[in-house]
């Protein structure tokens, strides 16, 4: 007698109509739950008109519970009379449990060590016995056909801690994975688990981390496998002879598209300003702006004098100003970034070792290297800057892989808060240069070993094209109906009942489906608490507010104000326009003796006229 025929393992009986996709069975009380893998024995005909026993594997997707012996009328009387059911003759023990099973496939009844799944081609036999398979059999099933393939250990089957669940590593790193869950659903825990599993394989990883969720990897790097390096980068744009195009890239990615004339003028600026290797992009842009101003001034002078024949007058004032404005915009973003970097490094210097971001075009090896995890910490930067950094880095790394330069090995990119980097069209994609980059990486990446792991709490706000390119999904708790229906629309094999249970998952519980696993599974993700970030995390805002020293804050702000802008000047400035208009009006009427505000107004007007 094998486990499939052992009466001890029986948990129910198939009832009603069956098909090759699903069946229902009456479940014995407390013998199985939603998500459990069950099996039943059935005969399947083969080509030679014979039939043989096959094990039909399935997953319980729903269980209806009904107590036919407890009429609603009785409940009414119990409530009315304030009676406890247990004290009456009513029955509570005869629940009727009707479970729905989604068929996963069939395997040979005597398949020995292997349990390869084939599609079911003949319906399950009504009245067949349904069996709860032992852990060893499920393990065999889950690992079928990939015994020697590298795996990423993720956790266990939900409700069956004795059955490990692993992803096929190659499918994750080449075919992309999406981890979707609402806040608190455990997506960071899940992503960290997969990252740790990849680290065990020494696989290079690049993480874009907008909240510092993965800083714990550096904090606890001593617990990682020997030889693993965790590098923490803050963004920094530098120029060199090799990547002088970075400025034009920045202009383009930050939405400052130039006309042909502007482009020519910009190229003229770049040609006339030599790059010092390793120079900050902000410094270089400052020089370009200065140069542009000079050019503009020259142009003004020439305007005022008679035109000389040798002045080419190739670029007009508006062209120069437009380029200057674009450069100033990029410069201000970069300066903001640098200021942020300074504050960040200052704040976290005791806990973490930050390095300046290497130039991804020139030094990709510093970012992608065997046994190295590179974390780009993007907290505090505005959306455009974050998106630009992701775009520039990924673009450069992908180019290196795609051009087959052999400079960097295949790597896995982790994109946290992905809805910010790959938003759907409805969300507005103008200021998101990373969208196009990620689209390119995800559609062509599988050929070049640039896998993506997309993590988001708002699936409905993600770009559908990108999400549909993900071949595997790990979906944890999701409550928002839009998110759920969106997930259903992009996940081919997520049944309606599966979608319905998404909202019932606890932290770390979810459903995994796609090429990373044999068939959709409910999992409990392993929580690697030891890698949790202890410095940045859930802050106690109530405590912080309670302990807030308001006086000190006010004093500090007052000082800051005086330092940056003299109080008296600002006060004058803020009061003057109003005063000017009023007094100007008065002056017109001939009542105002004060000439100064009128002059000021005049000067503003005259400047405009000029």
């Amino acid at each position, binding site marked *: 007698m094998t486990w499939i025929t052992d009466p001890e393992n029986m948990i129910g009986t198939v009832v009603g109509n069956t098909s090759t996709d699903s069946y229902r069975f009456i479940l014995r009380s407390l013998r199985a739950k939603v998500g459990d893998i069950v099996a039943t024995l059935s005969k399947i005909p083969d080509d030679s008109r014979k039939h043989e026993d096959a094990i039909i594997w399935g997953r319980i997707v729903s269980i209806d519970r009904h107590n*036919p012996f407890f009429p609603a009328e009785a409940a009414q009387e119990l409530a009315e009379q304030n*009676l406890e059911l*247990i004290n009456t003759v009513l*029955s509570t023990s005869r629940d009727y449990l009707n479970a729905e099973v989604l068929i996963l496939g069939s395997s040979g009844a005597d398949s020995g060590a292997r349990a390869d799944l084939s599609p079911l081609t003949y319906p399950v036999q009504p009245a067949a016995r349904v069996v709860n398979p032992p852990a060893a059999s499920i393990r065999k099933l889950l690992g079928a056909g990939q015994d020697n393939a590298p795996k990423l250990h993720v956790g266990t089957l939900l409700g069956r801690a004795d059955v490990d669940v692993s992803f096929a590593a190659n499918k994750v790193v080449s075919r992309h994975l999406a981890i979707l869950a609402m806040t608190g659903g455990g997506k960071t825990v899940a992503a960290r688990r997969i990252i740790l599993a990849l680290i065990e394989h020494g696989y290079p990883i690049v993480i874009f981390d907008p909240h510092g969720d993965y800083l714990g990897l550096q904090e606890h790097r001593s617990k990682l496998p020997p030889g693993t390096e965790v590098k923490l980068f803050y963004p920094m744009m530098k120029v060199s002879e090799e990547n002088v195009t970075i400025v034009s890239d920045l202009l383009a990615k930050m939405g400052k598209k130039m006309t042909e004339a502007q482009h020519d003028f910009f190229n003229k600026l770049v040609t006339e300003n030599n790059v010092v290797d390793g120079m900050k992009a902000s410094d270089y842009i400052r020089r370009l702006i200065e140069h542009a101003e000079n050019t503009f001034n020259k142009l003004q002078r020439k305007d005022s004098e008679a035109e000389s024949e040798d002045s080419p007058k190739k670029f007009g004032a508006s062209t120069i100003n437009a380029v200057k404005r674009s450069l100033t915009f990029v410069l201000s973003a970069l300066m903001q970034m640098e200021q942020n970097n300074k504050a960040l490094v200052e704040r976290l210097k005791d806990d973490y070792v930050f390095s300046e971001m290497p130039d991804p075009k020139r030094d990709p090896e510093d970012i992608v290297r065997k046994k190295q995890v590179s974390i780009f910490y993007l907290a505090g930067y505005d959306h455009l800057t974050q998106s630009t950094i992701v775009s520039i880095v990924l673009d450069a790394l992908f180019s290196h892989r795609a051009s087959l330069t052999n400079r960097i090995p295949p790597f896995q990119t982790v994109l946290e808060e992905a809805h910010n980097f790959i938003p759907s069209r409805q969300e507005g994609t103008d200021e998101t240069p990373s969208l196009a980059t990620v689209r390119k990486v995800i559609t062509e990446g599988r050929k070049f070993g640039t896998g993506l792991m997309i993590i988001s709490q708002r699936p409905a706000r993600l770009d559908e094209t990108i999400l549909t390119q993900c071949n595997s999904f790990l979906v944890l708790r999701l409550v928002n109906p839009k998110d759920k229906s969106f997930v259903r629309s992009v996940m081919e094999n997520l049944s309606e009942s599966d979608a319905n249970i998404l909202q019932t998952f606890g932290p770390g519980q979810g459903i995994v489906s796609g090429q990373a696993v044999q068939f959709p599974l409910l999992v409990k993700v392993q929580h690697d608490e030891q890698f949790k970030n202890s410095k940045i995390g859930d802050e106690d805002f109530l405590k912080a507010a309670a302990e807030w020293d308001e006086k000190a804050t006010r004093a500090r702000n007052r000082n800051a104000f005086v330092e940056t802008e003299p109080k008296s000047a600002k006060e004058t400035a803020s009061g003057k326009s109003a005063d000017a208009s009023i007094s100007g009006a008065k002056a017109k009427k001939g009542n105002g003796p004060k000439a100064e505000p009128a002059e000021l107004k005049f000067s503003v007007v005259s400047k405009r006229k000029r």
Partner: protein
Amino acid sequence: MEVHDRLESKLTQGDFLVNMLRVARSDGPRLEQAFIEHVGNLAEKLSHFLRSNGLIRKAEYEPAKFWARQRGRAFGFVDGGVASIDLPGASPLGIRVGSYVVRPGDETDRREEFKIEFSIVDDLYAESPSTFAVPDDLEDRYGDRAKLRDAARIISEIAAALALIRRRSDVKTVLVHGPLINPAAPYGPPGFPFFTADTAEKLFGAPVPSEKRHFVPLYREVLERVKACSTQAFGVVERDGGGRALLLRVLEEMNRAGDLPDKNYAAGNALLRKYDLSDTQILDVILGPGEYLEPKVVPRQEPSNKWPKDWEESLKFYPNPLTTYLKPSETVRPFRVETFEGTEDYQEAMTLILATARLLPGYGFPVALDIVDKYAKVPSWLSREIGAGHKAVLLRKAFEQDDRRLQEYAIKMLSVSSRDWFFRPKA
């Protein structure tokens, strides 16, 4: 609520309406108009008569106190289910009787026990297994299959109650769904087969001598055994079977005791006959919530002139049920309750029946009997499947023959229940 008010509220109910129309047809328009008035008067008179003679009792409904008092006591409920399988050329019998024992207030796993006490599955005319003995000459077999099935069902229900009482000595009260004591005479005509030794033993719980394997003596024996037990046994009848057995019995007893003059007795009898209302219908108007009629012994085996000669002695000593009607609440009709004569703690048992019936406030019937009914019932899908399976076997056997006519006959026999244009002779 007054009798007239109750009557007004019942008028929309089907059977009252039917009775009114029936009376109207026979007595003309005058009586049609006066129906309500006359029936109202009858009910008023009866109500006054019953109440003034102390023949109406009341079971108190104080559920919190009552159920607290029952903590730890065990109550049993029994009901049978019959599979409805209709097959040509065969008389399948599928009966199962289930029991439900519950101990209110018990919070352990042993609070409830569901058990199929009996199940009889066979063909009435099969060699084996068989419920009834098949005569040597098949021509002599008893023709009324429905009676055979009824006999098997009636005896198996009370036999299940006996089995339960024997098995669970802690059970204080057993309620059986249906009459506690049924008329036995219809199952005693000449030729009515005896039970097989196996069936009789199964029903009685011990070997039964051959002469007592007949329904009439065996049923009585089982009833006597149940009566002799310390456990109270009640039959609760859900449906109104018609007739005025109890009210007539009340009048008769009063008359016999000299409390009701012959003239008045005759007038009362005539009134009841005239309006052709059943006990349930009249008492529905008369009784208030929780009230029941003083229980009376109603002879169940009457009339004796129809007793089969072979079983006269046995029928003479059949126990008769102590019968009453209990009205659980204002909105539901009373139901019949039967027990054995001499049952102790009658009032407490009626309170139990009322309390369990009030747990189904809309239907007004002991909820635990509803539970055991659902448990024991043979679901229609099962009956259907059995029928379909049986037909398939017969059909396959027919097709194994080369005789085309036999095959067509099998198809006709199995697939059509009546004449069908489809099977008209072809040109």
